[in-house]
């Protein structure tokens, strides 16, 4: 698809002398060794995305197994033990191994490109975070395959998951899975926050940051303050189970509700950590397909920030049925309803943008349409369950299963698929098939609604959650069968997406740099961007640099190519501040991750693993940090003191 030069688009493409310098920077690592040692944020981000998608498919298969078991009453397909492991693994995977990591991974890939810089901050730490994440996920599925998977639910309530009733090592695998994914996720937050504050292209003031990046930044802050809660909780759980502490043992002054407070203090922000990046994706796509800048940028930013703050004040709405004092609960109803307002602001602003634009219907916009429908429905049922008295009927029933899937699939998965179809050309250099994309959308949209809408009714008709079967006399069979059929259709939609990806990788039309004629910086680079995102760092004067005439007003010269350097800019105004050399490819993040994995898994079996296991970790981290003479020499050659 050729892209005619639009009036006002940057004409820096036209200079052949400059184009000659578009060759990839040296020190790009190749082959298997390159794969294991790369510090390029795009390669690491892409493997994060692909791995997370793989786990998504695994968890989806688990969901289909559940639907097959529940399709008819008193079904003997799957017994209670296996079923409990299946729904626990499904939920744990979707929440910890798919949804949060994939959104962060989108950030790892796209944020540096959108900010106009060469690499993410602390790329070796991102590499380490990936391996840790992968090994944690593999540990969980190994346990599941060996029939010792966690079986106390993705939320692992005590005392069911505690030492007395949580037999064997099952819940320990769950708790350490948390440790793996939380350490990984927290390292990514530090990296992305630093990137957004310090590595923006010169001239990219705080008001020119794309909304996608704002969403990522806000999410990273939420992550930073929420994840420690689940780390503390899961550590306390392992300690109760392994060394006899009594955090959750009421007989010795502990409390089962302490677990719920700690878990949900994390758990509620977590769903917003999944939802807010999806909002960022929608904000990236809507203006491009409406052919006008997003309406209400300041309101959109404030809404993202308000959502993040409010999300920390809702957690008790998961505990309305407990014996907490009624007086406080209504405050959480009010807060849970209030958080709908910033989301509504975003919806109104997108609607206005589309209404006053010249919309062009392509697959990404179809998925945004799906997002509007499904997310709004989920948000409205969310308002229902946020009301304390009504929640007492709806809590822990299939109504909530419906609600959570409407908001998560509507609010995160549909934007994610919109984003896949939108950024696929940038990542691979080829367009996805538009026809297949439409089919994918309709199969997913129809399949999803047929699967999950009946669950609202099932909940009201008395069907609780987490049941491996139900009595034939309850009259729930027809709706359950319907839901199963819908789930299968949804599965076909996702399969079709995979087919589209595979075909497009080989036969897709060549995309060029900017096939959608979009406005943000990632579309300035080649498709796919070269290592180091070309050697040029742009100087920005606009929020929509590729649309505004003179939006890219110059470039940064004088950065070294070998070792590659990037530019650090000041906080709010993005003035050039100093240069930093990018690190060289290294195997030590992988080796450190292996050592850390041994420590984490070992400590499931004995507390001494923490002591002995930390020695190889310390050695690996030290070697990782320790500079080589060659590297120090090269840096000193470029050195200039502040």
């Amino acid at each position: 698809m050729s892209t005619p030069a639009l009036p006002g688009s940057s004409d820096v493409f036209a200079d052949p002398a400059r184009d000659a310098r578009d060759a990839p920077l040296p020190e790009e690592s190749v082959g298997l060794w390159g794969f294991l040692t790369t510090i390029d944020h795009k390669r690491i981000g892409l493997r994060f995305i692909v791995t997370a998608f793989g786990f998504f498919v695994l968890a989806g298969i688990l969901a289909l197994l559940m639907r097959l078991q529940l399709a008819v009453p008193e079904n003997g397909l799957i017994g209670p033990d296996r079923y409990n492991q299946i729904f626990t693994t499904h939920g744990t995977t979707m929440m910890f191994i798919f949804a949060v990591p994939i959104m962060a991974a989108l950030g790892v890939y796209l944020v540096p490109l959108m900010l106009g810089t060469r690499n993410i901050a602390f790329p070796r730490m991102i590499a380490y975070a990936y391996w840790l994440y992968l090994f944690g996920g593999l540990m969980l599925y190994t346990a599941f395959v060996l029939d010792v998977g966690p079986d106390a639910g993705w939320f692992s309530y005590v005392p069911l998951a505690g030492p007395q009733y949580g037999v064997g090592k099952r819940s320990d695998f769950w708790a350490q899975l948390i440790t793996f994914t939380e350490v990984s996720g927290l390292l990514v937050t530090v990296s992305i926050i630093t990137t957004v504050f310090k590595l923006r292209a010169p001239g990219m003031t705080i008001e020119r940051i794309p909304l996608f990046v704002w969403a990522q930044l806000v999410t990273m802050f939420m992550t930073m303050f929420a994840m420690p809660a689940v780390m503390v909780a899961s550590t306390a759980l392992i300690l109760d189970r392994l060394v006899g502490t009594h955090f959750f043992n009421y007989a010795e002054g502990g409390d089962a509700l302490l677990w719920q407070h700690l878990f949900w203090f994390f758990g509620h922000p977590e769903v917003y950590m999944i939802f807010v990046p999806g909002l960022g994706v929608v904000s990236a796509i809507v203006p491009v397909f409406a052919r006008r800048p997003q309406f209400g940028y300041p309101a959109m930013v404030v809404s993202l920030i308000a959502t993040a703050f409010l999300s920390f004040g809702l957690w008790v709405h998961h505990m309305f049925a407990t014996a907490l004092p009624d007086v406080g609960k209504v405050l959480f109803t009010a807060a849970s309803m209030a958080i709908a307002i910033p989301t509504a602001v975003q919806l109104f602003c997108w609607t206005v943008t589309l209404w006053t634009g010249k919309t062009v219907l392509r697959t990404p916009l179809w998925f945004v349409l799906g997002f509007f429908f499904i997310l709004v429905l989920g948000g409205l049922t969310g308002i229902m369950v946020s009301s304390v008295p009504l929640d007492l009927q709806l809590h822990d029933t299939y109504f909530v299963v419906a609600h959570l899937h409407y908001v998560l699939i509507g609010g995160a998965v549909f934007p994610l698929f919109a984003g896949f179809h939108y950024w696929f050309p940038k990542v691979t250099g080829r367009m996805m098939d538009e026809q297949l994309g439409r089919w994918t959308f309709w199969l997913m949209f129809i399949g999803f609604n047929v699967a999950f809408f009946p669950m609202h009714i099932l909940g009201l008709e008395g069907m609780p959650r987490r049941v491996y079967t139900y009595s034939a006399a309850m009259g729930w069979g027809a709706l359950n069968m319907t839901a199963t059929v819908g789930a299968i259709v949804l599965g076909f939609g996702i399969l079709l997406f995979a087919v589209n990806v595979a075909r497009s990788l080989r036969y897709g039309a060549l995309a060029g740099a900017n096939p959608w004629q979009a406005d943000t910086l990632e579309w300035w680079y080649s498709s796919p961007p070269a290592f180091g995102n070309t050697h040029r760092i742009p100087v920005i004067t606009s929020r929509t640099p590729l649309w505004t005439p003179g939006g890219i007003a110059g470039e940064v010269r004088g950065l070294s190519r070998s070792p590659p350097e990037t530019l650090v800019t000041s906080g709010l105004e993005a003035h050039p501040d100093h240069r930093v050399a990018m690190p060289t490819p290294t195997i030590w993040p992988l080796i450190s991750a292996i050592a850390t994995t041994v420590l984490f898994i070992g400590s499931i079996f004995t507390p001494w693993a923490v002591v002995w296991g930390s020695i190889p970790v310390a050695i690996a981290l030290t070697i990782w940090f320790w500079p080589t003479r060659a590297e120090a020499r090269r840096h000193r050659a470029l050195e200039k003191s502040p």
Partner: protein
Amino acid sequence: MSEVVLDPGSRDVDARALPSYAFGTSSLMWWGTVGVAAIEGTAFALAIIMYFYVRTRVQTWPPSADPPELIWGTVNTLILLASLIPNQLAKKAGERQDLRGVRIWLCVCLLFAIAFIVVRGFEYTALNVKWDTNAYGSAVWFLLSLHTTHLVTDTFDSAVLAALFFTGPLEGKRYADVSENALYWYFVVGAWLPIYVVLYWAPRWM
């Protein structure tokens, strides 16, 4: 931006004129360190909240035990506070890019580190409760151990950095690393102060 603009007609930037490392909020490591401190600080805050939550679940405090002995905790608090002096001097030496100063003061810091780790060992013996006695004991050991982990990692970080300053290979940005390491040391000492009050004084006041 004006001093690095090549020619007034274009907005190009000449990065060669810029330094290749920086101190304080300009440096990426500062942000990395502060980010990690924010995360760990949240964990400490939650552990303290957990301690007080357990308080609401029992009648007497501490339940069936004496409060931790004051002596070792107080001695360690004094050592930690005193360690801020060589820490600050190391930071200043780093910012002056004074090689000898950095070497001396990092070593002095390490001496303090050995002292407070040893005394931390004594603290554990004087808590008057074990982690598996009751939820109070669990909360006490958890809070103390969370901090001990930071003492150990901070000591290790500082030792590695000190070693590098003796063996090389060195470059300018290592001085920035010294400055950021001092920041982390401040965090570890600063985080201890509320924990000290909670562990040693709260049971005497409640």
